[in-house]
């Protein structure tokens, strides 16, 4: 995953995204250009329906643009086959969701271990790495607990451990503090900031919360499918 031309990790050029609802076409993103350098902590803000999550999905290879190019680490991902795209996501992307999206029937450790099932690591190595990830987020002592036994903040930290366990290039967070109280939210933001500053993770975070966006190194605003550096009224 190297981009010899410059230090840009994510590059989107002329990206359109159109959703069809019956015969109606909804243009969510139109001709969007974006560049994100390695090691950046980018906050994406904007009103509901502005296309923040859609953009996150396109960068993370969870969806494909209707038009345009999406490159990550110099690799064009919008043209990859489903199988190759899945393998690429497994290797390069960590995802953190607003509602944690943990498997309720698996312990925190097993939840964190999930992405490692797609690797060739041995059972012992998977367990070791999952424990390390839980340790990083401060939850080593809760490894055997199930999501229902964890607080919201702890569940989100488990979600972050799951996102970083494969040591991905890119961390995509969709409103990671949206379901948490201020204190827990701050702890999550501290954690994300530490991952960015200490481990050099490139993070893109979608948020409605100006307080959360302040933790990022750059904030972009999305409105009606267009990006700007200034908030829109």
């Amino acid at each position, binding site marked *: 995953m190297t981009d010899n031309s410059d230090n840009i990790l994510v590059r989107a050029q002329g990206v359109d995204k159109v959703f069809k609802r019956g015969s109606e076409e909804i243009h969510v993103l139109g001709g969007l250009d974006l560049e994100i350098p390695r090691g950046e902590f980018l906050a994406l803000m904007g009103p509901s329906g502005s296309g923040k*999550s*859609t953009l996150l*999905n396109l960068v*993370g290879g*969870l*969806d494909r643009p209707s038009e345009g190019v999406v490159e990550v680490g110099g690799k064009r991902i919008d043209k990859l086959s*489903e*199988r190759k795209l*899945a*393998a690429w*996501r*497994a*290797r390069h992307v960590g*995802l953190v*969701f607003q509602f944690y*999206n943990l*498997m*309720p*029937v*698996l312990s925190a450790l*097993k939840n964190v271990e*999930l*992405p490692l*099932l*797609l690797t060739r690591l041995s*059972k012992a190595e998977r367990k070791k790495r999952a424990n390390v990830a839980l340790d990083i987020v401060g939850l080593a002592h809760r490894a055997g607990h199930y999501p229902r036994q964890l607080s919201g903040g702890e569940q989100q930290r488990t979600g972050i451990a*799951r996102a970083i366990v494969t040591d991905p290039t890119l961390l995509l967070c969709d409103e990671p503090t949206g379901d948490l109280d201020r204190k827990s939210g701050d702890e999550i933001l501290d954690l994300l900031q530490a991952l960015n500053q200490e481990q050099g993770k490139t993070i893109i975070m979608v948020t409605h919360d100006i307080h959360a966006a302040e933790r990022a190194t750059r904030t972009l605003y999305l409105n009606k499918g267009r990006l700007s550096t200034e908030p829109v009224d």
Partner: protein
Amino acid sequence: MKYLYLIFSSLKRKKLRTGLTILSIVVAFLLFGYLSAIRQAFAAGVEVAGADRLIVRHKVSIIQLLPQSYESRIEQVEGVDNAAHSTWFGGIYQEPRNFFAQMPVVPEELFDMYPEYVLSDEQKKAWLATRSGAIAGRGLAERFGWKLGDRIPINATIWSKKDGGRTWEFDLVGIYDGAEKGTDTSQFFFRYDFFDETRAFGEGLVGWYTVRVSDPDAAAEVAAAIDAEFANSPSETKSEPEGAFIQGFANQIGNIGFIIMSIMSAVFFTILLVAGNTMAYTVRERTGELAVLKAIGFTDRGVLSLVLGESLALTLVGGAIGLGLSWLLVSMGDPTQGSLPVFYIPTRDIFLGLLLIAATAFVAGIIPALQAQKLQIADALRR
């Protein structure tokens, strides 16, 4: 293997629903195993029937008798090796529900014709030496707790004796075993000469002939030649392969195979609905989770395999328990306390059961699995 805990963890999500679904699958496969044993009991005779044996009976009906003199004429037909006659006795031992087949035969002919009936030389000699002697199959002897030397009284419903009595008493001089697993050991044979001399009527008449042909491929031609031999006589014959004869005999009760197949079809159709419904709910409830699996790198095919794996685990657990329980029940004995000639689940049906488990898992799981496969990550995460 590393996905197994994921599969079984998913099934533990709704324990009651999973438990009830497994229970219904257990019942279906328990029925399958048990009914297989019953079907086998009725089909065993057909399956072990000799391909080189014909049955020659009266053209009108099996209850019409044939002259014993036909035997030598049958043996002179080209392609016939030897012939042996039998007659339906139809007596009652103690009470009517104790049904079993009793037939007067010529001992030497019986063992020539049916090498699958295994009797020790010593007991054969005893039978030849005892006019009122009889032999019973191992299954029959065990059913009634008979042992050698017992005197077996049988009340005749057809064949009264010359002295006016209806109770025939036989000395049990032998207990035969089956050379194969499916050999019928529920029968009772006694000597024809004793029977012929003692019966009040029908002297010189027999029920049917079993005929061994030299070349099984020419059995149809030999059967036609035998029937031609007795055409236009007072007792015309109908000759057919032994298997067809036994099948016809079993069909007097009803087409057991068809009845059992109908029951099983209804049961498995219901099970498919139950298991399919469970799998559909399982997938619908976990749309978000399946989308997360895809998001973190599971391929479409990987998710399809997981859902099919859950379906297989569900049916495998239920099916294995059901088949195991049916095997246990069958090994405890047949439901008629021994009236059935054989009672076991054939190996073929155990494999068929395993095949059914896989088929049920596939059919119940394939639609939800395809839905999971087609799931669009972004759409599913928005829900």
